[in-house]
């Protein structure tokens, strides 16, 4: 497989995954009206990245890699928060999401939360977009084979967009009440992966120096330079070499959040009084 395809796919999937999840969530929670601003935000983010990338190129400047990693860390941390919010929200509302209640004020997503979700999609694209544009421009100008390299990178991005679209379709089709456990478990995996990749970018930004001893060698599974590695890294945050800090962060999120999602419904903590009051 072309290396440029793998990089395009990985960078693209990281953004498409979050946008796909946010779009499906807004749609499922009866805030389809927020999809339009979300798409405008995504388009604006792509435009900004292209402009910034071309400006860097014209000024003959290198991408400030450490600042880029810093940006990825901050947006990654925010994404962990947002996905966690979705998990908690869905768990709380999973039972009474059928029928009328869904449309009642108690169960509708507040506009503040909606705005946060729309903002998340914007920043998810900014986070990966600039690096991708700079990479694409470099490939087109300097690679050994610009045509094949550029086509590979664009194809990788196209596959990433298709995956985002599949996530959106799948998310919309799933019945939230019945399939909450599946959706919730997938979101927990995604968020735990975001924790690990955020710790990784924090290290590359020069912010995290401890816990960098190798803890786990996954290079048999996440084979560098393959399209499967692009998906595993882009969607689940798995890397060929896992450091102690990344492994601890991953498990510290995965275990409690997984238990929260998979705990049997019968033993569930009572729903928030707000919801009870909303019941007619």
């Amino acid at each position, binding site marked *: 497989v072309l*290396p*440029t395809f793998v*990089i395009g796919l990985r960078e693209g999937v990281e953004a498409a995954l979050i946008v796909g999840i946010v779009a499906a969530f807004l749609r499922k929670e009866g805030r389809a009206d927020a999809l339009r601003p979300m798409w405008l935000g995504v388009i604006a983010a792509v435009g900004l990245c292209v402009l910034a990338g071309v400006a860097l190129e014209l000024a003959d400047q*290198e*991408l400030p*890699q*450490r600042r880029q*990693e810093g940006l990825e860390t901050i947006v990654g941390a925010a994404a962990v928060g947002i996905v966690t919010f979705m998990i908690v929200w869905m768990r709380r509302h999973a039972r009474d999401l059928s029928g009328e209640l869904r449309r009642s004020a108690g169960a509708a997503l507040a506009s503040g939360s909606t705005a946060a979700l729309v903002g998340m999609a914007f920043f998810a694209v900014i986070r990966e977009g600039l*690096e991708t544009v700079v*990479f694409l421009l*470099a*490939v087109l100008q*300097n*690679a*050994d*084979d610009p045509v094949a*390299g550029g086509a590979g990178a664009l194809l990788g991005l196209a596959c990433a967009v298709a995956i985002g679209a599949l996530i959106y379709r799948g998310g919309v089709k799933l019945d939230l009440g019945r399939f909450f456990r599946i959706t919730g478990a997938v979101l927990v995996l995604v968020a735990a992966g975001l924790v690990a990749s955020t710790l990784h970018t924090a*290290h*590359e*930004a*020069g912010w995290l*120096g*401890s816990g*960098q*001893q190798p803890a786990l060698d996954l290079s048999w599974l996440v084979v*560098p*330079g393959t399209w499967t590695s692009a998906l595993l890294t882009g969607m689940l945050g798995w890397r*060929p*070499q896992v450091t102690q800090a990344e492994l601890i962060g991953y498990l510290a999120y995965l275990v409690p959040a997984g238990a929260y999602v998979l705990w049997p419904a019968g033993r569930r903590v009572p729903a928030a009084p707000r919801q009870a009051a909303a019941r007619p």
Partner: protein
Amino acid sequence: VKVKLTDAGCDPAKLDLEAGRTTFAVTNAGTGRVSELELLSGARVLGEKENLVSGLSGSFTITLQPGRYTISCPGGTTAATGIVTVGGTAVHASADPRLQAATTG
């Protein structure tokens, strides 16, 4: 200083440099295994360049103080890590031209 990325990793994997402002010019010399170079002090990343596929090059510039550093070219077979030894005398922070420009106005 020029470093190439090869199937083995970083080439050369051993660098002797003088303290001061240093630009690492990284070129991928045709490997599909390695696409990234990091300069580390202990476990802390000081500078890096990633997503360098075959034929691409990039650079980063930092001010090096005397001491021992490592370079990492993840994915390389035999030279995934290398050693950088920086000699000379400690450089004043103002050797950074940007800082100089900022303080002298």
